[in-house]
């Protein structure tokens, strides 16, 4: 696998949290690729480490968390080896992030124009008239109604959907190659969600940028993403094209996850499907595969050897011993 084929290659990323109660092994060897212009969805339950993966890529992990080891290859450089000043050039510029809650991720004391303009000024050096022009262009890109007015307004004067568009505007202002969206629609009303998703979709097409979409909502992923990566407790358990994830899920966790989503045609009197057991304690994770205590397929190998992500079909990768063996791969 040549790293220059892909825009982003994450290899064996490990991020731990050093807390009073112990070391939380939050990310335990996360690896995946993202191609140029591709949309990859990163899904999983709350707390599985998807947001942390995003923070790690941007190297914005806060105390007491720390990136222990791994490689993150982007544009021919390992991001984890860069100096902070070099990383700052990349943030907001080549890789940008859209956050979850537009009401807390915008600074209440500065105008929208100021906050968007900052990114442009920082990375593209524009000033004065040119700067203002570019800000308005960016607001147009995100289909903001009445940009000239919004530029001078403060975040609390805008609605939730408009604020999210501002966050997106800040992110795309410098035409990044990779846009990381961390639960961009979770804090919004359902109707607004659809509009924002459509916006992200359109932007992707227009700029041909890559998108790493992080969410716990499978429906969102189905709409926009080319491929999907499923995470569980700090590990990637399955990566495959979207159609295959939904049509032919291989990993037991993925299957259980899809099972548990209530279907339209389901009998309302029927109990909802659940996954038995509880999330593992990441200070003392289970030996071997982290999912084995809850897995119906678990065998002895599962209990002592951690499965790595291996190909179990064309372009379909799974981290599961039984599945891999079934596919015919060497044990």
């Amino acid at each position, binding site marked *: 696998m040549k790293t220059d084929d892909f825009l982003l290659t994450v290899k064996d990323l490990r991020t731990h949290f050093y807390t009073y109660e112990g070391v939380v092994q939050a990310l335990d060897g996360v690896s995946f690729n993202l191609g140029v212009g591709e949309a990859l969805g990163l899904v999983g339950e709350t707390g599985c480490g998807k947001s942390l993966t995003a923070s790690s890529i*941007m190297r*914005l992990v*806060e105390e007491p968390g720390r990136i222990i080891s791994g490689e993150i290859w982007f544009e021919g450089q390992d991001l984890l080896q860069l100096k902070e000043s070099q990383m*700052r*050039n*990349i*943030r*907001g*510029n080549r890789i*940008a*992030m859209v*956050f979850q*809650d537009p009401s*807390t*991720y*915008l*600074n*209440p*004391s*500065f105008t929208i124009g100021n906050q968007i303009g*900052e*990114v442009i000024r*920082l*990375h593209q050096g524009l000033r004065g008239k040119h700067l203002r022009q570019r800000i308005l262009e960016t607001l147009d890109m995100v289909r903001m109604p009445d940009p000239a007015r919004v530029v001078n307004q*403060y975040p*609390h*004067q805008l609605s939730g959907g408009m604020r999210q568009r501002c*966050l997106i505007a*800040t992110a795309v202002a410098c035409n990044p190659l990779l846009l990381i969206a961390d639960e961009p629609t979770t804090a919004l009303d359902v109707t607004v969600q659809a509009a924002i998703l459509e916006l992200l979709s359109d932007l992707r097409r227009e700029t041909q940028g890559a998108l790493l979409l992080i969410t716990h909502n499978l429906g969102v992923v189905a709409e926009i993403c080319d491929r999907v990566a499923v995470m569980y407790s700090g590990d990637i358990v399955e990566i495959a094209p979207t159609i295959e994830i939904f049509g032919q899920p291989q990993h037991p966790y993925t299957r259980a996850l899809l099972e548990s989503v209530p279907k339209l045609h389901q009998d309302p009197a029927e109990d909802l499907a659940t996954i038995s057991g509880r999330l593992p304690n990441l200070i003392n994770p289970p030996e071997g595969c982290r999912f084995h205590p809850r897995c119906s397929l678990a065998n002895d190998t599962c209990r002592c050897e951690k499965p790595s992500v291996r190909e179990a079909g064309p372009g379909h990768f799974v981290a599961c011993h039984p599945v891999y063996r079934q596919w015919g791969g060497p044990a």
Partner: protein
Amino acid sequence: MAKRVLQVIPVLLGVTVLTFAIAHSVPGDPARAIAGIYATEETVEVIRAKWGLDKPLPEQYLVYLGHLLRGDLGASIQSRRPVADDIMDRLPATLELSLFALLLMVVVGIPMGMIAARWRNRLPDHVARLFVILGGAIPSFWLALVAQLVFFSWLGWLPFGGRTGAGIVTPETVSGLYVLDSILTLNGTALVHSLRQLLLPGMVLALAGTTSITRMTRASMLEVLRQDYIKAARAKGVSGRTIVLKHAFKNAMIPTITVLGLLFGSMLGGAFVVEWIFAWPGIGTLAANSITNLDYTVIMGISIVIAIVYSIANLLVDVSYMVLNPKVRYEK
């Protein structure tokens, strides 16, 4: 905002009522106090009538209020001079000292708080917190004495006290604030001299407030640095310094400003003691002397003046808070 300004009026009125009430709690007969111990019964009655002390209390209050509104604060029992005059004579000195102390507080306290927050749990933070803990426990009057001992007796760097005197050059009076006047009249020697006199009492007075400001700034800075929009700014590639100075600063300052009014008030109180020790010819010394002499009119007059000044200061603080906080500003 107009609402806030109008609120001051009933409060000030209440202040006059309170002062009146306190003044009339003096045990004993006020007429006799004015007349003196040796006066005869008749003299006391004459004085009682003359001062209207035989009228019912509410009426006395209205008379009192009338006097106040005309700027008449009564006369000192001790010196017979109008209290208002005494106060006006000494107000510039106290004002200068207080403003100087306020300046020190802000200039020292805010950066210290910010540095402590930026380097949390490292050396600068520990130093700052040690300063806050110790500084907040030191009695200012004791510190004043120690400061005199160290800086005057031992080191000889700074003067013992006082504002004017032999060998001290004072500028022409424009505002009554010597430092300001020295600058305005371009009098270099006077500037140096007045700063020298101001330094020790100013530093002692500023201590309590500085600890408060440092503590508040640190706390609110830490709070702000935890916010999501700071993370968003980092994700934009903004440098650490800009984050602290631009993104965090404005939001962190808001709680600190609200505290400034309070600090000014406690400084006005602390000025009493500090002025007395450093023989600074301000309102504080006047008050301290009046206490010893039991000169109630002066004490009451000073209390009212201070209450009014304090109310206005708090008003200014509240108004500037409204101006600075965009959420409040655009609530209309």
